């Protein structure tokens, strides 16, 4: 185990020394945490993100006034929803729209439970998303990029590679070209996004991947798109495709 952990650290040290561009595969954001933060992440008695999973577990069984609880259709979620998060974002067959996990939960709530939507980034939606994603912990990401998902994947790839903002940077320039190097106090990652919704120390709370993307856009002084916008959904699909095979780590701890 220590050997497996030591290898990325050694690689990073080597990169820092030589200033070489990242040439390896896409790795999880946890690779770039300090050993102490990684221990905190992996210890449920110290990782505060588990509070959101606990809240999601409660919301899942709670019966809303207008309809059935989530549990009414998704009985035994630990078995039936295991692996669900690895397949999102995916194209909804009925509406041909790209939906991420948040979008699917909201759709379920509005169309099947006949309840008003929680709203993106609301504590309830974050909790339910964190709970459902946590059921896939350890399973490899496996989104579909063919068929109806192809145009969304292409749009996400184009977004990732396009220069944007006042600093005229593309996502790719840092998250492919400068991975492992320093950006202010932090280490640049691949942007795998497999730990989201994650507890971010900077936020002091759990936030969605789209909140993280908005923070990135602010950093390069580019347009911040709305939560759940088509641009970020397409980018989320592309990032998930890049992270194919990496285990889901929700609820992760991030700086």
């Amino acid at each position, binding site marked *: 185990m220590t050997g497996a952990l030591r290898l990325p650290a050694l690689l990073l040290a080597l990169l820092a020394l030589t200033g070489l561009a990242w040439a390896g595969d896409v790795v999880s954001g946890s690779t770039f945490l300090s050993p102490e933060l990684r221990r905190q992440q992996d210890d*449920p*008695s110290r990782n*505060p993100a*588990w*509070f959101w999973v*606990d809240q999601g577990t409660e919301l899942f069984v709670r019966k809303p006034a207008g309809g059935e609880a989530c549990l009414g259709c998704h009985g035994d979620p630990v078995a039936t929803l295991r692996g669900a998060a690895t397949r999102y974002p995916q194209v909804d067959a009925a509406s041909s729209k790209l939906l991420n996990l948040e979008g699917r939960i909201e759709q379920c709530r509005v169309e099947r439970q006949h309840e008003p939507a929680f709203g993106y980034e609301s504590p309830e939606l974050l909790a339910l998303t964190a709970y459902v994603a946590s059921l896939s912990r350890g399973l490899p990401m496996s989104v579909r990029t063919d068929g109806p998902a192809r145009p969304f994947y292409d749009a996400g790839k184009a977004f990732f590679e396009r220069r944007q903002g006042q600093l005229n940077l593309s996502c790719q320039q840092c998250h492919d070209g400068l991975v492992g190097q320093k950006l202010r106090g932090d280490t640049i990652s691949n942007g795998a996004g497999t730990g989201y919704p994650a507890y971010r120390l900077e936020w*002091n*709370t759990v936030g969605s991947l789209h909140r993280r993307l908005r923070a990135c856009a602010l950093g390069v002084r580019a347009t911040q798109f709305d939560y759940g916008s088509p641009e970020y959904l397409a980018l989320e699909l592309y990032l998930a495709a890049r992270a194919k095979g990496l285990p889901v780590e929700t609820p992760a701890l991030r700086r």
Partner: protein
Amino acid sequence: MFNARITLPPQAKPGEIVEIKVLVRHPMDRGGQSDGRGGTVPRKILNRMTATYAGAEIFRIDMNTGVAANPFVSFMTRAIETGDILFEWREDGGATYTRTARLTVA
């Protein structure tokens, strides 16, 4: 919303020193930020946490605005007898929250 995760060893020997880990969900709002209507948000933090075991207070911490949201506290105590440890938090404004955790000594 308040919540707490209290982690004790599953079992302790009499006289053994055990670690008690307490993680709390609380925004620990330091106050002073704009409320968007010309006023400021009042301070609302957990200002004290106490733990009582076997009839005695075994731990107390006074917290201030420098403590981060969702604070984590860990402390050691001597296991004497099987019994509940009572945790109590005092929030600005007078609200209190309590939780108990059972320490098994054998």
